C-alpha cells in the first residue's frame, strides 16, 4: 500500500478525534541543531470546508482494532485496514512540518492485538521524532485504554500532551457502547497515572479527554458532572465533546445524528465551569426537565434568567465574580471594568461599556450604569397588573 493511501485511510479514521490546542509551556534547552519550536499560543494552519481547523497531522498509527465500540468509524466492518511503521510516519510528518503545513503531531490508534503492542509502536514513533529527527515542536499522544504504566511514562517523556478518551460519562453508559472496555480500570486508572506524571511536571500541556455526545442517551447533566469531577479530581486540562454522527456499517448507523448545536451548548457550559468559575449548582439552573441544556439559548443567559433576584447589577460597584455572571460580560471586559474602578474612572455611559468589550445586546437587561437601567415593562405597568394578566392567561391555557 502506498504512503498516500495509508495517509488517506488513517487520516480519515482520525478525523473525529478532537484536539484544539497546540500551546505548550515546554522550554527548550538547545540553541541549534533542532527543528521546530513549542508555541505558547495556538495556531491554525488551515481550515476544512466544514470550518474546523487543521493544525496538527492527525492520524492513527493503525486502524485495526480489537474493541467493539458501536459508534466508532474503525468498527465498521468494510473499512480498508492499514498501519504505519514508525520510521515511515516520522518521515511523512517531517516533510509536512518543514514546509509549514502543520504545527505538530496528533497520534492516536486502534488497538491491534493488544494495547501494549500498539502503544509500543506509537511511543517508538514519538521517540524517533524527538531523538533522531531532533524535533522540538508539539506532540499530542493518545493513550490507549489498558496501556501499561511504563509506556505511558515513556510517552510522557516525549509528548507535550497526553489524552485518554472517556467516550461516555460513566460506567453504565460506556457498557452500552462497548463490551470490551472497562471504564474504571482501562480509563480512569490510566487517567490517574497521567495525573501523577503531570504533578511531576512531565506533561507540559497537561491531559485531556473526549466524550461522544448523544451515542448512549446520556444527558448533558451527566456529561458536565463527569467533566467537573475530572477537572477537580484528575486535574484534567480540558474535556472535548464530539457530536455523534452515524457511520455506515456500525451498529449505530440507524441512530440519528446529534445536532452540532448541542455540542456548542456543552462547550459554553464547560467554559462557564472552567473559565468563569461557575459552580455546578449554578449550571444546573440551565437544565430542562430532561437534564439537558435547552438548545435555543446560551446557558449563561438561562442561568441569569433563572436567578432574577441577583440583577440588575451596578457596573461601578459589582465585584469581578458578579460581573462575570452578567450575560455579555466576559473575563476580559470584567477585568477592564475593575481596572477602571481602581484608577477611579467611573463608567457613565453605555457606549463606554461597548468600548470596554461588553456585548450590550445581551447585557443591558442585567446591569445598571450610573444607576440608570434599560426601561422595563414594569416601568409602565405595576407588578400587580402583570400578575393579574398572568393569572388570566394561565386560566385560559
Amino acid at each position, binding site marked *: 500500500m502506498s504512503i498516500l493511501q495509508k495517509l488517506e485511510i488513517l487520516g480519515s479514521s482520525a*478525523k473525529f478525534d478532537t484536539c484544539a490546542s497546540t500551546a505548550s509551556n515546554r522550554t527548550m534547552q538547545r540553541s541549534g541543531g533542532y527543528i521546530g519550536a513549542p508555541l505558547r499560543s495556538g495556531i491554525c494552519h*488551515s481550515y476544512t*470546508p*466544514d*470550518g*474546523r481547523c487543521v493544525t496538527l497531522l492527525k492520524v492513527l498509527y493503525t486502524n485495526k482494532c480489537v474493541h467493539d465500540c458501536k459508534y466508532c468509524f474503525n468498527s465498521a466492518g468494510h473499512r480498508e485496514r492499514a498501519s504505519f511503521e514508525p520510521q515511515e510516519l516520522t518521515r*511523512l510528518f517531517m516533510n509536512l512540518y518543514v*514546509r509549514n503545513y502543520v504545527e505538530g503531531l496528533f497520534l492516536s490508534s486502534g488497538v491491534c492485538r493488544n494495547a501494549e503492542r500498539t502503544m509500543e509502536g506509537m511511543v517508538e514513533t514519538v521517540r524517533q521524532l524527538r531523538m533522531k529527527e531532533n524535533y522540538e515542536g508539539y506532540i499530542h499522544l493518545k493513550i490507549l485504554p489498558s496501556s501499561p504504566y511504563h509506556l505511558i511514562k515513556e510517552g510522557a517523556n516525549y509528548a507535550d500532551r497526553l489524552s485518554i478518551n472517556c467516550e461516555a460519562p460513566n460506567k453504565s453508559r460506556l457498557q452500552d457502547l462497548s463490551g470490551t472496555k472497562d471504564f474504571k480500570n482501562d480509563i480512569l486508572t490510566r487517567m490517574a497515572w497521567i495525573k501523577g506524571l503531570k504533578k511531576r511536571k512531565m506533561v507540559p500541556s497537561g491531559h485531556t479527554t473526549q466524550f461522544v455526545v448523544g451515542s448512549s442517551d446520556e444527558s448533558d447533566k451527566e456529561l458536565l458532572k463527569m467533566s467537573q469531577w475530572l477537572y477537580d479530581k484528575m486535574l484534567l486540562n480540558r474535556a472535548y465533546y464530539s457530536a455523534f*454522527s452515524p457511520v455506515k456499517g456500525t451498529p449505530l448507523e440507524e441512530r440519528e445524528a446529534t445536532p452540532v448545536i448541542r455540542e456548542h451548548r456543552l462547550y459554553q457550559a464547560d467554559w462557564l465551569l472552567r473559565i468563569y468559575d461557575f459552580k455546578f449548582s449554578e449550571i444546573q439552573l440551565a437544565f430542562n426537565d430532561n437534564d439537558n441544556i435547552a438548545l435555543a439559548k446560551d446557558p449563561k443567559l438561562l442561568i441569569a434568567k433563572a436567578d432574577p433576584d441577583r440583577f440588575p447589577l451596578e457596573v461601578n460597584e459589582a465585584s469581578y465574580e458578579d460581573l462575570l455572571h452578567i450575560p455579555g460580560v466576559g473575563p476580559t471586559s470584567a477585568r477592564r471594568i475593575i481596572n477602571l474602578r481602581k*484608577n477611579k474612572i467611573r463608567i457613565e455611559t453605555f457606549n463606554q461599556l461597548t468600548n470596554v468589550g461588553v456585548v450590550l445586546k445581551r447585557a443591558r437587561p442585567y446591569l445598571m450604569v450610573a444607576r440608570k437601567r434599560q426601561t422595563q415593562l414594569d416601568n409602565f405597568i405595576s407588578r400587580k397588573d402583570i400578575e393579574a394578566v398572568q393569572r388570566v392567561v394561565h386560566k385560559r391555557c
Partner: protein
Amino acid sequence: MSCISGANLTKNTAGYYLKLASRHRKSQRDDLIPKVKKVLKAEPAIIYNKVSKLAKQFYKRGREVMGEYHRLNAFVRFEAYPEYLLVSEVRPEHDILDLMFSYFRRRYPDFVILLWDQHSGNLSTRRNLDFPVFGYKRNYWHYPRTKYSLLMVRDLIRSQISELFNVDNFTTELWEHYYDSQYIKSRKNIKLAQKAIPKKMIAKAGGGMSYEAKRFDEEEHNKQKSTLFDFLEK
C-alpha cells in the same frame, strides 16, 4: 512569546500594542500614534482599558497587525530546496516581514529562510546568500521593484543554489490527500471556513492557501440547486 523581536514586552499591554500599531500601514500617514502616546502619558488607564474611541481605534490597529502576522505565520507554505533552503512568497499589508522572519528563524534554526515580498521588494534571509544587485535595508535585502521583474529575482535565487531547482510536488500531494481526509461532509460550513481564511488572506499568503481556496470554491458550487423538475417531482 513576544512577537516583537528585541523588545522585552509582556503580551497584551499598551506598550506591546503600541509597537504593533506603529507597524500598521495607516500609522505611517496619520497622527494616531503620537496622539495615543500623549494620552498614555496623561491618563494611561483610558488607553489600558480601551475606554475611549481613540483607544479603541488604537487597539484595532494593533489587532490588525497582530492578526496578519499570526495568520501569515500559519498560512505561508515553504518550498524546500537543497542545502536547507526554504523559500516562500508573502504579500503582507503591514510592516511585519522582519517579525515573520524571527518567528521562522526560531522554528527552523538550521535552515536558510527566504521570505520574498514581491509587493515591497523585500527578501528576508538569515544566511548571507550573495545578492549583489540588492541593497541591504534593516533586516532584509531590498530590490528596487521597477528595475527587476519577478522572473529576474527568481533566476537570481536559482543561480545561488548549487543543485537543481526542483519543486517537491510529492509533499503538496501528501498535503492535499491529508486535507481531504479531514473533511467531515455532514458538518459542511463553508461560511465559517471562509471567515477563517478570508480571500484577502489567501492572496497575502502568496499561493500557500491555493488548494484550500480551490476546495472552498468547489464546495460552494456543489450546493444543491432546486430545478423546476425537482418541484414537479414533489
